[in-house]
């Protein structure tokens, strides 16, 4: 029985439980709902919850366990020869799954019997053709191993799905019976339902914690493996980055850190003054009409995905800088450079700085502005000498948040900064960043035992720690700042 049908049956049971529970509670007080502790629907919900929640928990647990089991079992049947050029194990496994589901379809539509399916032989039968007839398109030809794996896969899955359905439905029925037996008019159904609801709410809010724990654990674990194979002093203080998939790699982080900081510094040098001045202009000077155009326009910059900025850097800004600045000045002839990535990233961060600054400048009480203007200060004197000093902590917080964003930005540097790990001062040279190297070490063929792959986790952890520090510091400053004017 498929998951879909199992879920549907459980839901139907729950609906039935709702109706019966409600009815039983009403009957127990002779139909006079005023004599019940809770509203009738809560008795219904109580039974429905007890039917659904445990059953679904069992279902989820079962599915994870089953996926794990089947995958391990079937994967072992695939041999390296089955994995074609440019393909990988997961793509082959997708073929296996598709084939298995095709076979299943063939059985359910009656084109074949289960025995016929098991008797198929890839070397004799035209499996593609057969599947084509039942409406399952299959891209490549089927090799014997894949067929065997798929037959095996189908068999395990179909057997498991029967047990799964039995287990899930049994749990649902037990829950149903328990809650139904409890139901009578004096039972505190509302409190029970509300308790369960509250429990679910708490569970949902725990996901944030679980995510952080997951991030830290997943990276700490693999970073531990990495430092088991590679000296941590060389990682943190090494000045050469040259991974080599035949071993003997030099994996010093400093060039990457340098590139990251250099790009971020340029981005902030662009974004902070522009963002700050734009925020000041729009909140203190601009006419309502100008503001109604300029403000959304700058906010649109924040809604544009980073890949778009990356493409902009790659096809426009990079060549422009190369042809008009770098080459005439003799500073290099690479389209991707620290300057390209920094400028484009700066543009991306402008709205971030300006909207945060806007909030912060507006949090400065009007009475301070009045005080200054009332003494005969010009608006700009008021802003520079009263508003900005008062807003300074908040603005520092905003800049730190912007810095954290710049340091963690990936797509712009992947497309704009280049891939060469270098310790250089020339902003028109291609350099690379931590994020770029995480991407390049973790995409393509990866061997999770090699330090060249594991180093990505150490880089990720470093990045996470740096941004976490910046974020917490910034959030703390901004929070303190807001309290000051509340």
């Amino acid at each position, binding site marked *: 029985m498929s998951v879909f049908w199992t879920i549907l049956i459980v839901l139907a049971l729950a609906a039935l439980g709702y109706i019966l529970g409600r009815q039983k509670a009403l009957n127990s007080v002779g139909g006079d709902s005023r004599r019940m502790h809770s509203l009738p629907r809560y008795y219904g919900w109580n039974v429905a919850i007890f039917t659904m929640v445990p059953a679904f928990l069992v279902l989820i647990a079962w599915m994870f366990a089953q996926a794990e089991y089947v995958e391990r079992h079937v994967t072992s049947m695939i041999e390296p020869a089955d994995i074609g050029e440019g393909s990988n194990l997961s793509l082959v496994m997708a073929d296996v799954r598709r084939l298995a589901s095709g076979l299943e379809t063939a059985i359910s539509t009656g084109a074949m019997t289960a025995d016929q399916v098991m008797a198929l032989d890839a070397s004799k039968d035209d499996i593609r053709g057969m599947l084509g007839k039942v409406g399952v398109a299959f891209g490549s030809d089927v090799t014997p191993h894949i067929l065997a794996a798929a037959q095996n896969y189908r068999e395990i899955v179909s057997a498991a799905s029967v047990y799964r359905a039995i287990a899930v439905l049994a749990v649902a029925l037990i829950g149903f019976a328990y809650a139904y037996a409890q139901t009578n008019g004096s039972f505190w159904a509302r409190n029970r339902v509300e308790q369960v609801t509250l429990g679910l709410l708490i569970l949902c809010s725990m996901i944030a914690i679980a995510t952080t724990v997951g991030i830290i654990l997943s990276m700490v674990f693999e970073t531990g493996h990495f430092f088991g194979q590679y000296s941590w002093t060389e990682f943190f203080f090494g000045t050469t980055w040259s991974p080599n998939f035949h071993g003997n790699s030099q994996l010093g982080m400093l060039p990457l850190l340098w590139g990251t900081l250099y790009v971020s510094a340029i981005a902030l040098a662009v974004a902070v003054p522009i963002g700050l001045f734009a925020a000041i202009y729009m909140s203190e000077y601009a006419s*309502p009409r100008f503001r109604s155009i300029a403000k959304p326009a700058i906010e649109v910059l924040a809604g544009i995905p980073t890949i778009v900025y990356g493409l902009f850097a790659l096809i426009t800004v990079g060549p422009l800088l190369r042809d008009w600045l770098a080459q005439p000045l003799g500073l290099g002839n690479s389209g991707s450079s620290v300057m390209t990535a920094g400028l484009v990233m700066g543009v991306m961060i402008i709205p971030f700085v300006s909207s945060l600054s806007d909030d912060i400048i507006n949090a400065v*009480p009007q*009475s*301070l*502005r*009045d*005080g*200054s*203007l*009332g*003494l*005969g*200060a*010009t608006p700009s*004197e008021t802003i520079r*000498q*009263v508003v900005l*000093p*008062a807003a300074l902590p908040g603005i520092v917080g905003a800049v730190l948040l912007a810095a954290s964003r710049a340091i963690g930005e990936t797509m712009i540097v992947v497309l704009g900064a280049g891939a060469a790990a270098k310790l250089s001062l020339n902003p028109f040279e291609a350099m690379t960043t931590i994020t770029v190297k995480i991407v390049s070490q973790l995409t393509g063929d990866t061997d999770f035992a090699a330090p060249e792959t594991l180093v990505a986790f150490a880089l990720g952890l470093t990045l996470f720690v740096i941004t976490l520090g910046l974020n917490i510091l910034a959030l703390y400053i901004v929070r303190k700042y807001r309290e000051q004017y509340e």
Partner: protein
Amino acid sequence: MNDMRIAERDVETNESKISARKVQVYYGTNHALKDVDVDILDKTVTAFIGPSGCGKSTFLRCLNRMNDTVASARVEGTIKLDGENIYDAKVDPVQLRAKVGMVFQKPNPFPKSIYDNIAYGPKIHGLTRSKSELDGIVETSLKKAALWNEVKDRLDSPGTGLSGGQQQRLCIARAIATQPEVLLMDEPCSALDPIATAQVEELIDELRSQFSVVIVTHSMQQAARVSQRTAFFHLGNLVEYGETGQIFTNPKDPRTESYITGRIG
């Protein structure tokens, strides 16, 4: 009204400092102030009284063009300071506000040191050539505001750390440090406790020797205590203007009388 001490009358000798004619103020389409004619005398405390929303604060803010900072406000008519129309296109509000200082309802010291709070005005207007001159201005201003003895040992500590009454006196000191000719005060005591209020009122009385002081107040007792002349505003109109003693003891307009006796307001 037994506690009402009516200030001594010595106003006859003073000449007019500000004269307003046919002043209208609109907030958007709302006609907030209608046909106000007033002559404010030099070296005199003038009180504006009236119920909330009567336009007294609005008129006060016209006198140093603080209404310019409200986008929807529009002012018509003429207001002359020493014979010059302050709404003339050639007048720079910045220069005007150096001559007509303002103290606000809520104490609003800048988040800077006490010293920097006072020095702010003289610095922006370039009133001093040396640090010692600036020190002098800070000291005299604080002395005039009767705050010197309380803060002279902690001029570097932040102005926001003072008590409410001290903060308001700091704001007054800040306003007089720019050497204005007129000092506008918008309900300067409404956020203060009675003791601090008494201190500020005493200070206002002393300031009269050098400035023309205009004070908006919601308290009739305060008007009676500190002012020599009083203007009563009601629903955007200037109802009655005259010597404080006369307004409080023998009002000519029935609306003034109703307000004084507590029937409206």
